[in-house]
């Protein structure tokens, strides 16, 4: 049985609860995110009074000790933030792959300003196996790997195993599954580009799909690139890889705003493109990834045989004139003009 929209929503809630729990040291909440195994029973209910470490049975504490160390190190200042996810499964089990950014705030600065600033510490992925236990989704395993790790390197150039969402038949209005399928399409498009799965990238588009890009580089006028059809899109992905950053760039689409009719939809999202630095140069190096650039995706997507595909993608870097032209106007979700 395929995953339903409710399954996707519940899996995302499980992941959010994991991240909140680990960042804030709610060890009881953290235990609840996992399936019971090897005699470790998950309590029927979360601890009602306190989830301080002392309230957790020793068996749980030892099981999640590595996570506790992470909490202690973060002291409430570290954030594990998934940026996008792809999930597939059969209704009883599922697997998920999340791109993640780790950040740390720098604390309240001296003086009267109360704002804090933060640094990206690194980027990576959660690879999950999930099971439905007692009617709710929990992790059978959750594994994190850094973007500069050998585990990430092994994925470069390989086809993505997780399958696209089958959103079913076309209906007269957008379903929750349609939204989910579109969001995962955006994640897939970014993943395949970053991991240089060029066929997978081209397959995110319809056969006559179109991609237009406007970027600027210091000292140069705005530059526009266009590709139409899967052959050109494939070449576009090959040519677009940043020199010297092969396999180390991650493209994500945040805050996707989707408007559609069940057959066709328009999407506006924020592009966040990061790169890792290839691993720490010395053991105490804490900042290992950075933002390469940001921008805006404006997409048209269509539903073909149950699968949502990009028919038109327009990308504008945040510093180009097309983006400036949006400021102060009513938000209108539509592709940029070429």
């Amino acid at each position, binding site marked *: 049985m395929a995953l339903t929209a409710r399954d996707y929503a519940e899996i995302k809630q499980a992941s959010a609860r994991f*991240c909140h729990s680990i960042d804030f040291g709610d060890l009881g909440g953290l235990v609840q995110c996992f399936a019971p195994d090897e005699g470790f029973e998950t309590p029927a209910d979360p601890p009602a009074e306190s*989830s301080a470490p002392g309230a957790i049975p020793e068996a749980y504490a030892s099981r999640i000790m590595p996570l506790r160390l992470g909490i202690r190190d973060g002291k409430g200042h570290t954030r594990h933030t998934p940026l996008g996810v792809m999930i597939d499964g059969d209704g009883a089990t599922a697997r998920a792959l999340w791109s993640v950014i780790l950040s740390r705030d720098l604390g309240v600065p001296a003086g009267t300003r109360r704002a804090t600033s933060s640094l990206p510490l690194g980027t990576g992925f959660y690879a999950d196996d999930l099971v439905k236990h007692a009617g709710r989704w929990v992790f059978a395993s959750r594994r994190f790997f850094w973007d500069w790790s050998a585990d990430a390197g092994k994925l470069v150039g390989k086809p993505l195993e997780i399958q696209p969402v089958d959103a079913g038949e076309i209906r007269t209005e957008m379903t929750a599954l349609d939204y989910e399928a579109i969001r995962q399409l955006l994640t897939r498009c970014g993943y395949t580009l970053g991991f240089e799965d060029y066929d997978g990238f081209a397959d995110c588009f319809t056969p006559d799909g179109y991609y237009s890009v406007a970027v600027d580089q210091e000292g140069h006028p705005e530059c526009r690139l266009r590709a139409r059809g899967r052959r050109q899109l494939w070449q576009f992905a090959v040519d677009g890889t940043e020199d010297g950053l092969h396999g180390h760039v991650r493209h994500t689409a945040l805050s996707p705003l*989707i408007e559609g009719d069940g057959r066709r939809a328009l999407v506006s999202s*924020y592009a966040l493109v990061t790169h890792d630095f290839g691993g720490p140069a010395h053991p105490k190096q804490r900042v290992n990834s950075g933002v390469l*650039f940001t921008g805006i995706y404006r997409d048209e997507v269509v539903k073909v045989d149950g699968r949502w595909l990009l028919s038109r993608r327009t990308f504008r870097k945040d*510093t180009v004139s097309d983006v400036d032209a949006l400021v*102060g106007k009513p938000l209108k979700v539509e592709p940029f003009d070429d």
Partner: protein
Amino acid sequence: MTDSVSVVGVASDGERPGAVGMTDADHEEVRQLFARYSQTLDFGDAEGFVACFVEDGVLDTSAPEEGLSGVHRGREALRRFAVASTEYSAGRVRQSSLNVLVEGDGQTARATSYVIVTRAYPDATKPHLKPSPVTRSELTTTGMCFDELVKVQGRWLLSRRQFRHDGLPEVLERVERPITAGAYPEPAS
């Protein structure tokens, strides 16, 4: 809501008969509301931003800038906040709510989310942003939103949103306490 922005409903898939609580459509509509909040605010669509709130909605933010800090209650105050925010950000700031944790009964809901904020710079005013000639953006801020939401005429709206920068004492008070979704509790008097 401005004329140019359509109100989008979400049809449910496979909803359990008699289910009480947040449906898959509710979860989706909350996600879309958060995306609309970010995009209207970041691009200075003040009317679209105000329309994300109920009539007497409240935004309470730890932003330190004049015109942005503090509590903004009601549509006129929210409109002024959006205008001031656009003047400050000049359309270069992008904020996204992630890790959204939602609990609710289908009519009201509480949410807690992580926020990451980036800023793009139009020129080389930031020398440290030059490991590559294409780098003109940086992650500037992270924080948390604590929200109360209500469904009004079939649409989810924010009745109260609190934003707090990560690292502030109110956020650190949550360390080693059970995770709950929703607005940050009022400080004890």
